[in-house]
């Protein structure tokens, strides 16, 4: 087994990182800056947002995210200079060829880069197909093309274990150029062309004169219903535009889902990520690359600190639901639930990147736990219940929460269940129709009360609709398929630095879920689900990214110092 030193391998190397503003990208960036001070430069590709330049976005990210807390505490007022010497913010967009970089910047990077870590990805399960295609497919292809145009760079493409689609059993660390779970004759290039054509066709269809007329009529009806001014041309134009955009978005989201299901993937996300893998593999001639496939990336085990999390993630909504009166999770007991802490994923990216630069890499790496330290969905469900129980018993906001809710555990149920969401919904709809029917036949006062009860039940039904849709999204991962992702690639690399080792066996699941993950989600994810403001980090010394000239001066000074040293 070849030994790898992360510090030595990355020393003086230039790495381009995309998707740095995402959960995974941020932690990896912070970790590398913290633990590999000798790194040459991390060129962080960030999109301009509206009028806001990339540097401003980067500055805000480093200055307000807890992912960079350790760096702030370690360097204090020196942090700006420290980062300026090791980071270059480049404005660009993965969905554009050459990342939309200025030609001079692109040219310079082509000679400088050793590694491109493509972390950018749209992780919504069923987004607008245009967005998914832009980020997940084109993003990957542009990264591959850019790497090929570099003098001596390699590509680490961050994908997902779930590109495997609706399949069960042991999933190997392999890459296929034309992979579709339910279609052995799948042709990735033909699918890519067809996909683009479909988007164009749907767009053209919705912009046709008939469709436009129909849309205008709908808008006028809406304006009348709302009692707005029918002669206001600007209002009509704006509303029509919004309606058209929404309709296009919905149609393309449906189209993405339809194609994904037809080929055997559970959603557009896994379908587009898989398509990107196939296309990169198919066009790989002369390209040094590896597919890095993490499973479900969740709260940090220790870096930047235990429990750090961001956004919804997978466990967020499911575990949040189990803190409410919802109790029956449609999941098949015994199925692995492949959760992997974000900092272990970052270690794994560092290892795979180093192996790639050294030419000792494998074509694909799974980064999960189902093979080496499996956690079943029923155990996860029990641990979530126990973690909520522990919290609510002491910190529940009412006696009801402390005494009753804390003791109502979630359970996994397979198939039809008396208290399943569809069954509850069908009962609630029955109640609504009975109440509405009766309200007309009883005295007016009682009828009014019945209407109010019916409205309240309808509102509850709408909430259940959201829950039902969400459970349907997760169903393939926790109920329908039984995935075990072979995770042996990293065992081929003996990492010298203990802090960078990838050892999923070391996770104590009970401790992780009860004392790290669920408390982390409660702090960072549940407020977002509830639409509340999520806590941001305020460093003692504000972070300011020095201008290019200052950064250049600092960098020169540092390189000189390093050379003298």
């Amino acid at each position, binding site marked *: 087994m070849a030994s790898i030193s992360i510090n030595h391998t990355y020393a003086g190397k230039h790495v381009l990182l995309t998707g740095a503003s995402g959960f995974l990208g941020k932690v990896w960036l912070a970790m590398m800056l913290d633990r590999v001070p000798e790194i040459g430069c991390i060129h962080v590709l960030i999109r301009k947002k509206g009028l806001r330049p990339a540097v401003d976005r980067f500055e805000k990210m480093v200055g307000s995210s807890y992912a960079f807390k350790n760096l702030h505490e370690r360097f204090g007022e020196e942090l700006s200079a420290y980062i300026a010497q090791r980071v270059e913010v480049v404005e660009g967009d993965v969905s554009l060829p050459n990342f939309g970089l200025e030609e001079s910047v692109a040219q310079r990077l082509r000679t400088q880069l050793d590694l491109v870590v493509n972390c950018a990805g749209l992780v919504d399960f069923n987004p607008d197909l245009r967005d998914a295609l832009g980020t997940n497919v084109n993003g990957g292809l542009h990264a591959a093309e850019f790497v090929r145009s570099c003098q001596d760079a390699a590509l680490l493409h961050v994908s997902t274990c779930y590109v495997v689609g609706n399949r069960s059993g042991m999933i190997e660390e392999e890459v296929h150029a034309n992979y579709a779970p339910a279609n052995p004759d799948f042709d990735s290039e033909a699918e890519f062309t067809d996909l683009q054509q479909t988007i164009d066709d749907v767009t053209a269809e919705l912009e046709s004169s008939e469709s436009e007329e129909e849309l205008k009529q709908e808008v006028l009806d809406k304006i009348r219903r709302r009692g707005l001014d029918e002669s206001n041309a600007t209002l009509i134009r704006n509303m029509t535009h919004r309606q058209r955009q929404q309709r296009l978005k919905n149609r393309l989201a449906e189209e993405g889902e339809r194609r994904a299901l037809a080929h055997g993937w559970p959603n557009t996300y896994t379908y587009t990520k898989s398509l990107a893998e196939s296309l990169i593999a198919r066009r790989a001639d002369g390209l040094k690359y590896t597919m890095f496939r993490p499973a479900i990336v969740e709260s940090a085990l220790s870096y930047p600190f235990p429990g750090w999390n961001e956004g919804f993630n997978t466990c967020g909504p499911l575990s949040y639901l189990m803190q409410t009166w919802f*109790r029956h999770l449609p999941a098949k007991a015994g199925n692995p639930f492949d959760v992997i802490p974000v900092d272990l994923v970052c270690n794994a990216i560092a290892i795979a990147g180093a192996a790639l630069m050294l030419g000792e890499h494998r074509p694909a790496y799974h980064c999960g736990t189902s093979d080496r330290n499996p956690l079943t969905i029923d*155990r996860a469900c*029990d*641990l979530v*219940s*126990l973690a909520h*129980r*522990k919290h609510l*018993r002491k910190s529940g906001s009412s006696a009801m929460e402390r005494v009753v809710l804390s*003791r109502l*555990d979630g*359970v996994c149920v397979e198939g039809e269940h008396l208290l399943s969401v569809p069954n509850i919904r069908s009962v609630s709809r029955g109640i609504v129709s009975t109440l509405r029917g009766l309200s007309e036949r009883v005295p007016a006062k009682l009828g009014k009360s019945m209407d109010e009860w019916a409205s309240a039940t309808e509102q509850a039904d709408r909430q259940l609709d959201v829950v039902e849709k969400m459970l349907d999204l997760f169903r393939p991962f926790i109920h329908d398929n039984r995935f075990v992702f072979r995770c042996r690639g990293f065992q081929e690399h003996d990492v010298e630095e203990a802090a960078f080792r990838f050892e999923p066996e070391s996770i104590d699941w*009970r401790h992780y879920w*009860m004392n790290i993950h669920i408390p982390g989600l409660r702090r960072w994810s549940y407020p977002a689900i509830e639409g509340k403001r999520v806590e941001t980090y305020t460093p003692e010394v504000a972070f300011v990214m020095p201008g290019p000239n200052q950064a250049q001066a600092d960098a020169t000074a540092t390189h000189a110092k390093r050379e003298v040293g």
Partner: protein
Amino acid sequence: MKKTTTVAFVRVEGTLVDRGVLSASVYIASNGQGLTERLLRLGQVALTAPVYGLLGQNDRVLANRLAYVAARGMSEDRLAVLGEEYFEDILQERILDSGMDLLRKAKAAGHKIVLLSEGIEQFTRPLVAHLAETLDIDELPESLVCNVLELRAGEATGRLLDPVVGGHDSGRWASQYAQEHGVDLERSVAYAAHGPDMLLLAAVGNPCAVNPDYTLRRAASQADWPIMEYTL
């Protein structure tokens, strides 16, 4: 080899806390995962309880085995969490002050304290950790001897692993322990509350029956052992 160590063997149930095995098994049963599971487990405990009472004096090993059948199929995770809760909710309030005094005296007399409990590990450890901290005896958790539930694939089978603590074997066990650890039993002490502990008390030079049940009281009177009575 000269035996220099002296030990205070202390039975937890009845001497240090006034809650026993059935209380723990009711807690386990009433906190299973889901309402159906709880009802089934409670039904099981309700059927077991009278048998436990009848067997208590004669075959406490079997009685203990029956009591913990309630944990069958329960996850190791849940048992660990319930053990902590059981201590916080129930046991902490049921610690007997006079029992604590006995431990203090044993410590002051230089005895090594060995706690014997019919409780399962998950339910006894939090109590022992608390006692160790309160009395400042770091080695107390290591010298705990308690029952161990068999676990398979992270779930309790409902079976207690041998040897089961609580039966008539405690006297023989104490002698073996003394041999292995070089303990002078003649200068050692033992505190216990139940009939099956008779042979444990008989094995040491300084036995004491604490809050004894009918059988132990009769035996203590006949053997002229001191009897202590105390409540919460």
